[in-house]
């Protein structure tokens, strides 16, 4: 352990060298804005800036890219909260409660909570990474297809098993999402599915950002115009340091549990290759709601609903570095690009990287700590600017949201087809919301569907079609059982309360 601390110290010192420190500052600031721009996520940011890194030594190059990655994780929350458009796929869950908070004039609270939760998530992940990287790599290896499917089942279960929501409508919403997730080429057989005759735009599947921007950008905008006739200025919040400190205290008091859940769950999901930060943040949201004493407040502006996914996406982004560095397998699309970078810098990611290139590895880990700290500082200092955006009347904001949504929808795949699709989803989401359908489960399903389906089929191929494979394996078994209990829990609850004759009052409107 002492050895680890010594190496980490060297790593931190390395990232505090003038060149590296400058790169970290530039990286987190750039990342913050890249993350905040809808359609531009950390993937694009890292891809665009990769060539610049050939000008500096490999150690500094990856520090720069990691700083961008970090900044983007913080930045994604900003447009989710202020405009209701997820700035990046990883920040979709942040819109569920961040946007309602902003509409209630509590944008500052949401932004401050998001920043602090991100910092805590990042810190927890860094400590776990530093202390247990090799051990965790072997955990990631022990997750085969049945384990990953069991985990996906658990994620769905957390969304079904939520008290307060209308369960049939939740299930309907999940099914819609799963159908959308099935569009495009089937990974196992290679055959195209649900392409409506021969519309080539459907061949690449429905990008989940297209759905999320449609539902939350356009749908939310229509809903706000409908319910307020445009006579709303979303926030009155003034920016003062004292107020921000109070917000920070209040936000953390309300959401320490969600932050903790997000930090650990996010990291764990992040280290599994194929998952990444987006499923991690959605699952953290679901679990926080499930374990909350006031689940009915989720989706209507609960700080915990902001803190959990934000802690999780930062934690997961550090986590997804782990399979990349130790196994040579990217845990997320962004790390796939980092991996490409490492190859050209002449480094071979894989089980031997820690022993062959300790300086590089510890320099990178050290930079995680430094980047995380500066990302917090930079983010907090820009909050007044973001709040200023919200002082505009909604009639002006709506036009901005529309433009940014169209840009974001196009940028995701560079295909006009997806812009039309995005607008269609927006209108559809507006009507579904009028009918009180929860939309978050559909978003969850389109993220997790493409992971759940192939792993289910791989598992069944492994077992020659015998579903008991999900119960008999030592890791998959318990997870599957918990998932099934969670799914059945609300049913049992309903039967129990019905037999007593007092059906719980269904509260109508949920934002998520």
């Amino acid at each position: 352990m002492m050895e680890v601390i010594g190496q980490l110290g060297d790593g931190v010192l390395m990232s505090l060298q003038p060149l590296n420190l400058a790169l970290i500052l530039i990286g987190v600031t750039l990342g913050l804005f890249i993350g905040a721009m809808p359609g531009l996520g950390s993937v694009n940011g890292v891809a665009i800036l990769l060539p610049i890194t050939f000008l500096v030594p490999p150690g500094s190059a990856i520090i720069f890219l990691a700083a961008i990655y970090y900044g983007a994780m913080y930045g994604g929350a900003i447009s989710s909260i202020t405009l209701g458009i997820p700035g990046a796929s990883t920040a979709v869950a942040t819109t569920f409660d961040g946007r309602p908070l902003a509409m209630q004039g509590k944008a500052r609270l949401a932004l401050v909570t998001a920043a602090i939760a991100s910092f805590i998530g990042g810190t927890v992940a860094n400590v776990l990474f530093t202390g247990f990287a090799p051990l965790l790599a072997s955990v990631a290896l022990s997750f085969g297809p049945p384990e990953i499917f069991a985990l996906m089942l658990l994620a769905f279960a957390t969304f079904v098993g939520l008290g307060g929501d209308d369960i049939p409508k939740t299930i309907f919403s999940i099914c819609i999402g799963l159908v959308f997730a099935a569009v495009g080429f089937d990974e196992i057989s290679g055959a195209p599915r649900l392409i409506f005759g021969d519309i080539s735009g459907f061949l690449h599947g429905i990008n989940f950002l297209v759905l999320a921007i449609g539902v939350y950008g356009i749908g939310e905008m229509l809903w706000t115009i409908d319910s307020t006739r445009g006579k709303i200025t979303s926030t009155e919040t003034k920016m003062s340091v004292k107020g921000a400190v109070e917000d920070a205290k209040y936000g953390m008091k309300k959401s320490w549990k969600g932050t903790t859940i997000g930090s650990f769950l996010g990291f764990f999901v992040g280290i599994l290759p194929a998952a990444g930060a987006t499923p991690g943040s959605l699952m953290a949201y679901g679990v926080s709601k499930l374990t909350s004493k006031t689940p009915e407040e989720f989706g209507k502006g609960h700080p915990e609903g902001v803190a959990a996914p934000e802690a999780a996406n930062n934690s997961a982004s550090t986590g997804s570095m782990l399979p990349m560095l130790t196994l040579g397998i990217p845990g997320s699309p962004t790390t796939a690009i980092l991996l490409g970078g490492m190859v050209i810098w002449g480094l071979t990611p894989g089980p031997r990287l820690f022993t062959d290139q300790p300086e590089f590895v510890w320099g990178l880990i050290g930079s995680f700590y430094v980047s995380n700290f500066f990302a917090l500082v930079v983010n907090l200092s820009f909050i007044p600017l973001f709040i200023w955006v919200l002082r505009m009347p909604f009639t002006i904001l709506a036009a901005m949201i529309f433009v940014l949504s169209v840009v974001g929808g196009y940028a995701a795949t560079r295909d006009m087809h997806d812009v039309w699709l995005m607008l269609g989803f927006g209108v559809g989401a507006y009507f579904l919301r009028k009918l009180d359908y929860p939309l978050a489960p559909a978003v969850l399903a389109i993220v997790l569907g493409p992971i759940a389906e192939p792993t289910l089929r791989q598992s069944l191929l492994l077992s020659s079609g015998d579903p008991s494979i999900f119960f008999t394996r030592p890791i998959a078994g318990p997870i599957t059982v918990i998932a099934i209990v969670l799914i059945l829990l609300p049913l049992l609850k309903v039967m129990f309360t019905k037999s007593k004759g007092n059906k719980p009052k269904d509260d109508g409107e949920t934002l998520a």
Partner: protein
Amino acid sequence: MKTTKRAFMGLLGATALAASAVSSVAHAWEPTKPIDFVIMAGAGGGADQIARFIQSVAEKGKMTPRPLIPNNKGGGSGAEALIALNNARDPDHTILVTLNSFFTTPLRQPNLGIDINTFTPVAMMGVDPFVLWVHKDRNINTFEDWQAAVKEADGEWVMGGTGKGQEDSLVTTWLEQNYDLKIKYIPYKGGGAVAKDLAGQQIMSSVNNPSEAKGFFENGDVVPLVSFSDERLPLVSEVPTVKELDKDFSYYNQRAVVGAPGMSDEAAAYYQDLFKKIYDSEEWQGYMASESLSPLWMDAAAQKEYWQTQVDRHKELLEKMGE
């Protein structure tokens, strides 16, 4: 002495002039906007790594006035990428990094309406060999032991690969048919995921490119048994080829670049020149050596011929597979 020096200077000057003349001629056409660099595989796999490496070499050497923008289209065993090229709105700015699914996918899915002969050959960058790997805890050290173990498992031997009809599955099927084996084949999204699940013992053996299994091999997690190349591979030089053992068989994955159908001759000449430069670069030569790719440069004409032989070969392999 003086004259030789002057002559030498003159020669240098002339060479410089000639070089500048050549480069201005060679660039009769230049990309005027970012180049859509389509990759026939998802992010993170072998093909993706190569494409990103090529992009980096081009960026590093400032070889293109406009950047190559990697665009992963791995869906449907490469069908998505082939369709994207077929429908490219701007064929002069659309190129594709291919694998052997360039041959197999149009054969297996004739309804896609893809005729690879309409595509524009650009360059063959090398071929990637295949090796049979097994986890070290199986205590299998030779190809013969492996055959015995598979037979003993009686249909329960699990191998992973990148999908039915994909390169490694053709080799796996070849093994089944030529050694009278029964193997359970699990498709994965990419070669990287296969390597990881072999190291984690989710599957029992795999047919993987050396570049994909290298990290785990060097760490001692996986053991190479036999290679499907013409010669022994430098990375695993103690491992015999299947040719040495008993059967006349070899199989490689092509790492080639092609242009969209309908690309103008000028643009094709530009890309052919560009990828020749990349191929000759120190970085690419180093990459081929470290990732165990076999060098196999081909210009456009040779590539077209190669396509025909590969289409015929894959037709035969797929037929034998019962596809």
